[in-house]
């Protein structure tokens, strides 16, 4: 039997996950990207890399938690840099109500006190009386994780073809998977961009073993350790499609909040400021749509690394079987099939 041939357009986290999932199912995959190197023009490059399905329950549809729960194993099997240390949520004493609200809206955490906080994160010792510990969550360095997927594809004999600006309709293959993210708005008019800004700092005076979220009524913040004294501080969420660099206001707010989390961040060196648009549909949930032989996989919003595995599994199933429902719910994430 002839193997299914699939062209995947876009080598951000969605495209890479789809390509790998399809390759693992036995499809012949061609992965193209209009950028010139990994991460070029992709909002995945600016991601936080938190695999935090249960924390996300605080502000998102329950589907994010159910779809995202499978991401941790998915990444751990394919990228050894996946760190399963959980995540920690804290708030300044005056924002205690926000911690209570966060606890009310989320699940799979334990409320911990000073001693346990100091045990988990010695650098936060004495700074917070209470925290929420989500032991089952994980994190990764998005850039290294994307490179890990590229290596995984190489083991299937697949190399990303950079500098190839293919239109989905004109691309070859039995199936074309459109993973262009926000650039696919030409075909998905209901896609919108939600701007996000982030900062990377080097702060050798602080070490965290896991992402820390600090709740704040105006500037909710997370700090993700990247190793080697590097931290990613994110991220704003602005209903704007403005391109261009991080604004002074956003940067000041993020850095201020980091400084409030731990004063040592005041001495940190700013390594990078980033900004990009997250592609989202009106319900902020990802979708797979079919138009002839083209499958459009998009709308990962701020859950690129968390939801791309579920999206990829759905895409692979739909590529192999045109009768598969495209609905993205946990219940119908299909079992693996072979191409």
């Amino acid at each position: 039997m002839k193997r299914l041939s699939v062209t995947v357009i876009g080598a951000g986290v969605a495209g890479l996950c789809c390509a790998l999932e399809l390759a693992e199912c036995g499809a012949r995959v061609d992965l193209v990207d209009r950028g010139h190197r990994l991460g070029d023009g992709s909002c995945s490059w600016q991601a936080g890399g938190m695999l935090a399905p249960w924390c996300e329950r605080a502000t998102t549809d329950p589907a994010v938690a159910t779809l995202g729960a499978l991401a941790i194993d998915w990444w751990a099997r394919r990228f050894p840099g996946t760190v399963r240390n959980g995540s920690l949520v804290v708030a300044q004493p005056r924002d205690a109500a926000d911690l209570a609200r966060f606890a009310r809206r989320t699940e799979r955490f334990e409320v911990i006190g000073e001693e346990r906080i100091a045990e988990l994160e010695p650098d936060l010792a004495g700074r917070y009386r209470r925290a929420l510990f989500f032991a089952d969550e994980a994190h990764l360095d998005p850039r290294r994780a994307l490179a890990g997927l590229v290596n995984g594809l190489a083991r299937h004999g697949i190399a990303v073809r950079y500098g190839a600006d293919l239109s989905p309709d004109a691309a070859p293959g039995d199936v074309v998977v459109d993973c262009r993210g926000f650039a696919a708005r030409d075909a998905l008019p209901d896609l919108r961009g939600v701007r996000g800004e982030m900062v990377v700092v080097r702060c050798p005076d602080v070490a965290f073993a896991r992402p820390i979220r600090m709740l704040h009524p105006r500037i909710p913040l997370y700090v993700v350790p990247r190793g080697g004294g590097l931290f990613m501080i994110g991220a704003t969420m602005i209903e704007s499609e403005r391109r261009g660099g991080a604004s002074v206001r956003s940067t000041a707010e993020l850095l201020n909040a980091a400084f409030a989390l731990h004063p040592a961040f005041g001495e940190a060196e700013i390594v990078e400021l980033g900004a990009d648009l997250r592609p989202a549909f009106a319900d902020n949930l990802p979708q797979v749509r079919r138009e002839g032989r083209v499958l459009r996989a998009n709308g990962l919003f701020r859950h690129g690394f968390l939801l791309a595995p579920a999206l990829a599994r759905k895409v692979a199933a739909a590529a192999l079987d045109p009768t598969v429902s495209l609905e993205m719910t946990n219940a119908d994430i299909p079992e693996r099939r072979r191409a």
Partner: protein
Amino acid sequence: MLFYGVDLSSRLMLGTARYPSPAVLAEAIKASGAGVVTVSLRRESGSERAGQSFWSLVRSLGVRVLPNTAGCHSVKEAVTTAHMARELFDTTWIKLEVIGDSDTLHPDVFGLVEAARILSDDGFDVLPYTTEDLGVADRLVEAGCRVLMPWGAPIGSARGLNNIYGLRSLRAYFPDIPLVVDAGLGVPSHAAAAMELGYDAVLLNTAVAEAGDPVAMARAFALAVEAGRAAYLARPMEPRDMAMPSTPVIGKAALGD
């Protein structure tokens, strides 16, 4: 109920921020029956029309859009934002916020009066977010405001009506100016209380957007606003110190003795 000559059918006004998604926002607005929604302009980069996607979602709800100057800390910022809003939304209405302190989001009432005067002179219909202070309210009316929106409590605090006496005085002092309690409401009973004081409408955001089920909470607020308004029109009895039996005692047969 006329706000700047516009007849509004619903006495509930909702904000559009902090919802889990625009889809939930749309459902909540529908469930609330709100006739006016506020949209923040400050951070949505109006100059490049970069917020267009979100704004068209809001416009597609088919309700009147009241742009606001949330997050503006100076007269100049607020005036610039108002101009941007007039152009983008094709409306002379502006919910004017000039914030004095970023932690309590307390209005800077001096800046507010100044900005209200500038904007009113420029043809705007200004709906100022203010405190319940009578002196400030007087100045705002003098500056051209024909609607006043005093806070119930600090924005997003869910504390309800902090100063009922002040809000009641304001109502008595301005019987002919439409008054809206804006900000600080947490649960529907707070909204009902504001309406029972004779306020013309309430404006809220976080209490709905951050509820566990925003759509159900929107509906609950709609019912409370309706109940509070009906109670006000029905002229509630005055509270008293001693009991008043609901069954008259006089004329009752004397037993015993």
